[in-house]
């Protein structure tokens, strides 16, 4: 993001369908050249927001500016944005070349230039040589590339992608994630993608807006979103997390403590700036918890030496276990009766044999791992 110019400005935009509010007073800027992702559960309003940028829905309230120009009442065929649809919407009665040339023909681009640009666009999406194919002779992944080429050939200011990877199988999806990022680097066009898949969002985005019930729950880069979620919704939606309720008992600039009866006294090596005695929540990612045999815990913790005794430490019994190859996921019943999820990387081939059902285990975590959530 060398260019910090906002290409899309969404200002106090709301969209209501009858009594249902799909988008509720959203304000956000999308910068030129960034890979922006709207992430949220289905029905959260992210697609409505995208369709308002494309012009298929008009905001009930508020303004949308594209490149500084108010487009709130500009129809979709007059907007400098193009969209890749979830169903790809490749015209089934036209060849690949005709599909890609469709928009250029409308724009009145001459035959010679048109053919040149169609070939370039198809090469860009690695479909060179497919010009004469009909869409029903192609796989879903190839059809998606046609849809991409058809939009990119228009050289839009912004490319909108509605759930671009949802219909692909897992392998192809992972590959397309990289390809889309590469493609975006190559063409330098701003990409705005809608997805409900957090992996997709984290791997591709330069910035992510998490949408919940029509509102922006948090706007941040991928790692900030994961490591510093702003609220329980984001912590829970992005990645897997353990959340415990507690009371803030200590809050100083360089340390804080939260008393969580569900798990333990939680110690943090930074301040929280919350009111003393306030109800807060502690979010703890499963991979940030160390698992060990009781008794060994003290020694391991002594090596870390970042929390006072009796903090950041819990005991429980393994009640569930799933071996996922790269990691093993444990469901542990804490002594308080609450459940906690812990994941453990299988660093050697036999690591998954270290613990099994009904084993009594100890857990500890570093003082910079827990996140204190005020809402």
């Amino acid at each position: 993001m060398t260019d910090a110019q906002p290409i899309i400005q969404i200002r106090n935009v709301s969209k209501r369908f009858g009594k249902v509010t799909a988008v509720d007073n959203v304000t956000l800027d999308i910068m030129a050249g960034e890979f922006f992702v709207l992430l949220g559960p289905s029905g959260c309003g992210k697609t409505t927001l995208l369709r308002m940028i494309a012009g298929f829905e008009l905001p009930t309230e508020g303004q949308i500016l594209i490149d500084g120009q108010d487009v709130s009442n500009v129809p979709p065929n007059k907007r400098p944005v193009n969209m890749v649809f979830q169903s790809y919407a490749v015209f089934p009665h036209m060849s690949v070349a005709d599909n890609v040339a469709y928009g250029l023909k409308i724009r009145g681009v001459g035959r010679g230039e048109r053919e040149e640009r169609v070939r370039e666009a198809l090469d860009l999406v690695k479909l060179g040589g497919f010009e004469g194919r009909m869409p029903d002779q192609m796989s879903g992944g190839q059809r998606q590339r046609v849809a991409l080429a058809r939009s990119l050939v228009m050289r839009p200011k912004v490319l909108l992608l509605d759930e671009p990877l949802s219909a692909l199988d897992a392998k192809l999806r992972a590959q397309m994630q990289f390809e889309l990022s590469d493609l975006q680097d190559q063409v330098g066009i701003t990409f705005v993608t809608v997805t409900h898949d957090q992996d997709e969002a984290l791997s591709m985005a330069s910035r992510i807006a998490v949408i919940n019930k029509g509102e922006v729950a948090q706007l941040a880069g991928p790692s900030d979103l994961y490591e510093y979620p702003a609220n329980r919704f984001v912590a829970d939606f992005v990645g897997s997390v353990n959340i415990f309720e507690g009371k803030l008992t200590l809050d100083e600039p360089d340390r804080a403590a939260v008393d969580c009866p569900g798990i333990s006294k939680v110690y943090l090596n930074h301040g929280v700036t919350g009111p003393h005695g306030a109800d807060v929540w502690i979010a703890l990612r499963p991979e940030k918890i160390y698992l060990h045999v009781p008794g060994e815990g003290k020694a391991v913790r002594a090596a870390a030496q970042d929390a006072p005794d009796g903090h950041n430490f819990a005991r429980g019994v393994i009640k569930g276990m799933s071996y996922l190859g790269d990691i093993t996921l444990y469901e542990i019943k804490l002594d308080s009766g609450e459940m906690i999820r812990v994941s453990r990387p299988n660093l050697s081939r036999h690591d998954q044999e270290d613990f099994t059902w009904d084993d009594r285990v100890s857990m500890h975590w570093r003082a910079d791992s827990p996140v204190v959530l005020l809402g």
Partner: protein
Amino acid sequence: MAGLVQDWKAHKRPFAAIAGAPLFWLLLFFLVPMAIVWLYSFGENAGPADIAISGTLDNYKRATEWLYLSIFLKSLAVAALVTLICLIIGFPVAMAITFATPKWRPWLLLGIMLPFWTNLLVRTYALMVLMGTNGYANMGLGALWDGTSWLRVAVGMQPLEAWTPVQLLYNNFAVVLGLVYVHLPFMVLPLYAALDRLDKSLIEASLDLGAGHLRTLMKIVVPLAGPGILAGVMITLIPALGAYLTPDLMGGTESQMIANVIERQFKRANDWPFGAALSFLLIYAMFILIALQSMRRDKGREAH
């Protein structure tokens, strides 16, 4: 049960038990009478109620004389015009139903299908009442005429001469109008089925790529609704070609269609062999239309 019918080759006996009765029905009440009429077409009148099947082709020779051929061609022209008008009216109607909100759609479809629940004769007479010289159509036109006349007086111009009712019935216009009225649902339903199947994001994609609504309609919607349009055309054209009641009741002497001529042979003229020959020429014409359609469909399938 479904499995039984699907594997009918493996279960010949239960399949025969299920399919036997309707097959017998069709054979007895459809194919046999058709065969009799077909045989009559090669016969000649041997007496007031006696037909000798002599294998003559005279009936067909007479049926292809210009007098009858011209009525044939005229019927085809009327049916084609009716189909075209139905298509022009029906396409926007089908589009409107497709894009109506889900709450409205069943009611609009009901509105299209409601006339089917009324007898054709009743509907035709109702239309005639509407279109008579003292009917509502003429009353409305008369009121407009009088209103215009009054306005002219009001702005200081000469009044129009007194309104004389227009003859709306008993002419070709009445036949075409009546046939359009009767056949419109046949056109709208297949068109709706085709348009409803159309992925709406294709339309949005066309708009997104800069196309206007008219271009999207011509380049995307119409080509993709092609099979539905063809089905609607056939399903309208064929019954319109054989229409009997509407031209009989609403047409004048010059607006006879082929079905009326056939009826006359069987009744007033009492010339069953000739009527049979005319009937079969009509049936052959319809067969050709259906064959053309299915050939087109097969070609379309091969292209994929």
